[in-house]
């Protein structure tokens, strides 16, 4: 697929804001570059044990990591019905640590009832509830995790139906639903073709798009202890190259900056971050890269690894 830069900018800017863009602001957008953030999933080994929600936000603030991803079912007290007091405190914390809510991680639990899959109406109800809550907390993107039906992670058969039902809700609440493209899924695959076909046919931009997890770019075997324990050290074949993502950029509203193993040389041992960030920058992609640390969950490991990763990303982005 080939698109012109102008077409790309139009799609990336989104239908809702397009009319407001003058030619000079389009030019400014072309100079955009990726922004940094953190998914609190990274702190799984520490959260609730040695770190509170506020500790995680303070840690991010140290790295000037502005964009935030939470997992709704993990980080919202009283989910799915947090108290007014909790929500007020949430907004106060965002201001205190200069953090922007970016991505709201949530699940359409298709196997919620034993023995059958959710129908489209039930799935929509689950989605609609999260869309409203995401908006109340200030999020503009959602990592919409869909149920799968096979080993290649093919989504449930009725996904088109309930996503279409939720599009007006997403627009009304200014959130972009994004399934995560995660290894072993490849960037050149039927799954991606199906998503792109749906996005184009139903004109879902920007309310339904993609989250690309940088784990797809892994090109070296992992050495970290967790990979040995889980028996998942080798990269998936065929290897995805950074440039393979270019045709998808108009539909990518956020990325997971997946990593497992930051070395003391401040490089990721298995993912070519230099190539990925160069590709995003060259193409003017200006969404958030949200760090997702998935290495060993030893106490303190996440903070140490995130700090190293953000120094690397600052260097690659010309911020340091």
């Amino acid at each position, binding site marked *: 697929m080939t698109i012109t830069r102008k077409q790309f900018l139009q799609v990336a800017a989104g239908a809702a804001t397009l009319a407001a863009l003058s030619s000079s602001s389009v030019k400014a957008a072309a100079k955009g570059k990726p922004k940094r953030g953190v998914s609190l999933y990274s702190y799984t080994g520490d959260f609730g044990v040695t770190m509170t929600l506020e500790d995680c936000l303070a840690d991010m603030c140290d790295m000037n990591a502005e964009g935030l991803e939470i997992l709704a079912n993990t980080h919202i007290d009283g989910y799915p019905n947090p108290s007014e007091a909790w929500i007020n405190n949430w907004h106060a914390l965002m201001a205190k640590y200069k953090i922007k809510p970016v991505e709201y991680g949530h699940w359409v639990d298709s196997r919620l009832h*034993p023995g059958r899959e959710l129908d489209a109406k039930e799935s929509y109800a689950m989605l609609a509830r999260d869309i409203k809550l995401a908006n109340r907390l200030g999020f503009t993107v959602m990592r919409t995790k869909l149920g799968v039906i096979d080993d290649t992670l093919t989504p449930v058969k009725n996904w088109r139906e309930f996503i279409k039902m939720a599009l007006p809700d997403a627009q009304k609440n200014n959130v972009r639903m994004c399934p995560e493209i995660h290894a072993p899924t490849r960037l050149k695959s039927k799954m991606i073709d199906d998503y792109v076909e749906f996005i184009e046919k139903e004109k879902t931009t920007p309310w339904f798009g993609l989250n690309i997890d940088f784990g797809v770019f892994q090109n070296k075997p992992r050495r970290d202890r967790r990979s040995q324990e889980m028996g998942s050290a080798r990269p998936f074949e065929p290897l995805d190259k950074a440039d393979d993502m270019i045709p998808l950029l108009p539909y990518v509203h956020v990325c997971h900056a997946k990593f497992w193993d930051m070395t003391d040389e401040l490089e990721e041992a298995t993912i070519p971050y230099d190539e990925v960030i160069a590709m995003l920058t060259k193409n003017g992609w200006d969404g958030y890269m949200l760090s997702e640390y998935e290495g060993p969950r030893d106490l303190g490991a996440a903070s140490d690894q995130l700090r190293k990763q953000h120094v690397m990303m600052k260097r690659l982005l010309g911020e340091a």
Partner: protein
Amino acid sequence: MLEKELIQSRGFKNVSQGGKVIGFQVPFRTSYYRGVWLSLLKPATVTVDGEKFEGAQITWTIGGKTYAQADLAKYSDVNWPYLEPAILTVSKPGGLKLGIHEVELTYSYVASYIPPDMDSKRLVTSKRKMVLAG
């Protein structure tokens, strides 16, 4: 705050009803990185010093409410919060003796985004040497 281990020390104790010890409690935090709906949980087993308890011998208490294991599947709208240990109450007249016990717990949960075959095979096992002090 939670203890790092799955099985939690705080709350590990005998339970009484009407002046009689009717069993003991094992609190544990979720091994999953998110809170889950109760209908996504699969039954737990508890083994203490080689004695195994399962099925109707165990109830779950979450958010102050107690559920029979067989009923968990009905509660698709009740969330087990990530930061709250679930309390397993095990029926054992007379309870456990004060002192050290080897406690092993198994349970599982459904994750719809994992390939169905792999998802159905998951079993979480956690073992901890515990001290019963009351």
